[in-house]
């Protein structure tokens, strides 16, 4: 490393120093720079705002989705807690003091008459009655229970209820 600069370099530095000293602020340049800076800021800010808007939209969508999913879960829980749904999932979840199992029943209304042998026999509803006709309410369930609930004379609305053991 040398302590003295090269003569040509020293001359160039003197010239650069002189130019800097003579330099004056330019109003046009300031205006051009302001214009460029403003334009650049606008160009930079526009995508940022779009991105922020998109983020907001996604955030709103996510919020609504969370609410909707929570509502769906609550509805599902209310159905799941509906006793029928629980039994559908696992019958062992039934409480210990529950009665017997659920079954499906159908009520049949069957016309019947007493036969000559004294038996109550089902008859075709379209046939002429040969004696006293009754409507028999029969309940059949798919748990194997079949029972007569009511016997009602066809001519009257009097109800005969089974009373004898």
């Amino acid at each position, binding site marked *: 490393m040398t302590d003295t600069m090269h003569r040509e370099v020293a001359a160039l530095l003197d010239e650069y120093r002189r130019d800097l000293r003579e330099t004056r602020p330019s109003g046009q340049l300031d205006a051009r720079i302001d214009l460029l800076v403003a334009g650049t800021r606008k160009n930079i800010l526009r995508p940022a705002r779009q991105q922020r808007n*998109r983020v907001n*939209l*996604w955030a*709103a*969508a996510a919020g*609504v*989705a969370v609410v*909707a*999913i929570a509502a*769906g879960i609550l*509805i599902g829980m209310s*159905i799941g807690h*509906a*006793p*029928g*749904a*629980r*039994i*559908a999932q*696992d*019958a*062992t*979840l039934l*409480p210990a*003091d*529950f*009665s*017997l*199992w*659920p079954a*499906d*029943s*159908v009520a049949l*209304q*069957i016309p*019947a008459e007493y*036969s000559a042998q004294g038996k*109550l*026999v*089902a008859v075709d*509803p*379209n046939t002429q009655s040969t004696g006293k006709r009754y409507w*028999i309410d*029969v*309940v*059949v369930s*798919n*748990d*194997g*229970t*079949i*029972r*007569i*609930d009511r*016997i009602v004379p066809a001519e009257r609305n009097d109800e005969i*209820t*089974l*009373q*004898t*053991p």
Partner: protein
Amino acid sequence: MKSRCRLRDRAPWLALALCWVVAQAAGADEVPVCPAPTGGAPAMPSNSVRLVTGVPYSALGTSETITILPDGRRVVRQNIIRQWRDSDGRTRSEISLTTIAGPLPLELNTTVTVIDDPAAGQRYLLQPGGRVAVTVPIVPCRPDPVSREPDLTVGPPRPAHLTMRVSAPVTLGERTVAGQTVAGRRIEATIPAGAVGNSKPIQMSAEQWYGKDLQVVIEATYRDPRTGETRYRLSDIERAEPDARLFQVPDTYRKQPPPR
């Protein structure tokens, strides 16, 4: 690139629409809980029909009642219920009734076909003789297993307004019947002495084994000294989806309301 950007812009709205559809679908599945048993005397069943979906099957239910007469003779009565259920919860039952035992036996010798269509809210009772389908409105519901009221409609027949003591159900555990895992319960009922002119209490019992998967009773035994012992068993269980035509009223049938 442009269409990709457009899709990206619309994605949030598509997500919102999807959430709305999911919420709507969840709400549409709500089915009311079946009304609790009335207790006391057996009542005519309401129009509520239990809805079980996604578990299709077909099977043969046989109910056999054996009555021992005072002179020692045995009387055996058999009734058969052929049953089908599809994935949508529609059911068809072909009920072949010969005799219903009891204090006033009823000779029937008839077959009734019942089709339940919960989606349509209709029950059809087919009468082959007159080519008539009697229509009855039904309401699908889900049973209420947490009901604390004993289901007195289950078990042996009872006279109306009869005083009766019913025990708490006893859990019998689980076992396998006809290839099905079943859970058992037993309930006992007593008609006190003098309630119906009886000198001694009348003891009755009902024992049911419930198919956890099929959600129907697979086996049951009912004992009542007045009528004898009734045994019910579900056999020939098939898990295939039944023919959809089984759940439709034939075109040759005329639909009409009940006669009275």
